[in-house]
């Protein structure tokens, strides 16, 4: 198998200017990834600063209603309010060990931008975040958070003015600044070694879940659900269970319905294509032009997906499915009311899927949902959609 490939997916489809930087990053990741000083420093940031391990919460009310044993992996309780910090602390620390002087990042919902701003602030590295104008408009509080922590938010006005275009601008910046700058990519997408590196940093979610459920229930869960945009929270919780007989279910953004054409379901409705340096499932037209996407959850509003997810779809190891905006909004309300936990709209997709498929599970079946983020950032948008508070 070629370097950086997941089955036939992945690769390094980038301009020549970036090849040197990717080689340097791969070497550093392999080197420091086994370096005790790096690993103990990361572990201490994750524990003392980020708040790991996050709890695994048994949901009594939801379990009763849905007829199975429902647990939530509480990445919403991680510092910053989402799983993103696992990756940004890892990469920012790596950048520091590499001697880089500046971090750049892309962001959609703003969660990765916030997590990069946090990591940059605590590690003393300046941060610049590319963010589409559309996303800036619908995620105002996160823009303010980033700026409070000293990050500069650069509006992106090209293309569809969302996450995809923010990645384009970050890649353009990096091509011109590779010597001093680390591009802190936020998901398991992009050219090798990003999908492998981000998975490594996010796998802490699945490792903890495994230990916690074994302690609590004495056995592995029957199913695990997670939402999939680029796919970092999903791969993070799935990866440590790939060799076990646990049903793994990835939930994509169905938007206004797959048949409407307005969605972000690359795995469910896309075909293999190359975007942002990797071959993966992609929403594209017959000429290979990338289609614009739609989701009520900005973090799922992305036309491609991680190459490893693409492979896991083809091998059939993971089931990929989608729920609509409407179903996600209902799940947002459901979890808030039943359990007192307001989920991110992204994570609400996984809850919605569970609510839809609950009949497939028996009373003693154990189901874990990765609650990848909290919903505070979405309150204004949800209120607007409901016609005002």
């Amino acid at each position, binding site marked *: 198998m070629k370097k950086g490939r997941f089955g036939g997916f992945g690769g*390094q489809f980038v301009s020549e200017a970036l090849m040197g930087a990717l080689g340097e990053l791969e070497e550093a990741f392999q080197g420091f990834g086994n370096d005790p000083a790096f690993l103990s420093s990361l572990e201490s940031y994750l524990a003392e600063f980020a708040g790991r391990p996050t709890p695994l919460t048994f949901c009594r009310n939801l379990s009763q209603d849905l007829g199975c044993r429902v647990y939530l992996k509480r990445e919403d309780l991680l510092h910053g309010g989402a799983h993103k910090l696992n990756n940004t602390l890892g990469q920012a620390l790596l950048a520091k060990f590499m001697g880089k002087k500046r971090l750049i990042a892309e962001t959609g919902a703003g969660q990765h931008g916030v997590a990069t701003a946090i990591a940059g602030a605590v590690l003393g590295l300046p941060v610049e975040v590319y963010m589409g104008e559309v996303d800036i408009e619908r995620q105002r509080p996160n823009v303010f958070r980033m700026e409070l922590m000293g990050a500069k938010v650069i509006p992106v006005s090209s293309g569809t003015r969302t996450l995809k275009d923010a990645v384009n601008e970050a890649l353009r910046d990096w*091509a011109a600044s590779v010597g001093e700058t680390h591009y802190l990519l936020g998901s398991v997408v992009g050219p090798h070694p990003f999908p492998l590196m981000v998975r490594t940093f996010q796998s802490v979610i699945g490792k903890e879940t495994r230990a916690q459920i074994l302690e609590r229930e004495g056995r592995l869960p029957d199913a695990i659900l997670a939402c999939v945009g680029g796919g970092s929270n999903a791969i993070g919780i799935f990866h440590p269970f790939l060799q076990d007989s646990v049903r793994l279910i990835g939930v994509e953004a169905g938007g206004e319905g797959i048949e409407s054409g307005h969605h972000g379901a690359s795995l469910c409705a896309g075909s293999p294509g190359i975007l942002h340096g990797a071959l993966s499932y992609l929403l594209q037209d017959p000429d290979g032009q990338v289609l614009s996407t739609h989701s009520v959850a900005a973090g799922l509003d992305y036309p491609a997906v991680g190459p490893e997810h693409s492979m896991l779809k083809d091998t059939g190891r993971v089931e990929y499915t989608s729920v609509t905006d409407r179903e996600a909004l209902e799940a947002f309300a459901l979890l808030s009311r039943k359990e007192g936990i307001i989920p991110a709209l992204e994570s609400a997709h996984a809850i919605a899927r569970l609510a839809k498929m609950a009949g497939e599970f028996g009373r003693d079946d154990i189901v874990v949902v990765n609650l990848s983020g909290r919903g505070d950032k979405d309150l204004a948008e949800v209120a607007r959609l409901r016609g005002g508070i």
Partner: protein
Amino acid sequence: MTRIGEVFQTLDRPAFIAYLVAGDPDRAGFLAAAQAVIEGGADILEIGMPFSDPVADGPTIQRAHTRALAGGMTVDGFFDSIRDVRRFSEIPILLMVYCNTVHRRGVERFYREAVAAGADGMLIVDMPPEEGERAVRAARVTRLDQIFLAAPSTSDQRLEQVLQSTSGFLYLASLLGVTGARERLSDEAGTLIRRVRPRTRLPLAVGFGISRPEHATALRDAGADGIIVGSALVRLVEEHARDPGHMAREIHGFVTGMRGALEG
């Protein structure tokens, strides 16, 4: 020898390679611009296939891609544009495309269609040689030149790989970053020419950021075998999109000036 190779062999000055985006601002406007470029004295015409996400390009060429796509440019239309040029000119034509366009069409089919339309070479800007085995094979089968880039950040080790995969000429990116006209020529261009020259017999053509006659002269003096100008031309297309006659005159004048700076 290919038509692209012959250009470098027969000229006693650096070649002028002009880049335009197919369908920019529309099919007829592109053709007028191509005609002006050729009549102004370009030696090789590089034609870009517009892509929704042109990551290697700066704002000027990004806007050209957007205009062309908004005007309905397709892969079929791209090949038609090449045929349009072939009706009046035998100028060597190099295609500059993004990888997904080729992948989606099917590598072998894309190369066959390119040759049938009259192309002489292929540059896939987001495909380094590491990912290019199939494309290089398709280029050999169809006798197209496969052009790769070297950048100031390309290591000596990778340079060997780039040189082994390239035919026709080597594209030297004068700077790190994206395409786009710059006021000043990057100092790194000369350094890169001196570094690559002893390692290959391939002609060396320099692109990125070249917009003025004095840049052309400086690169000639630095030993370049060719210069590639894109954004400065695309900007003229943009400025005069509504008046193709005026656009053609402006482009003709610009190309003549750049060509003149390469002579003497």
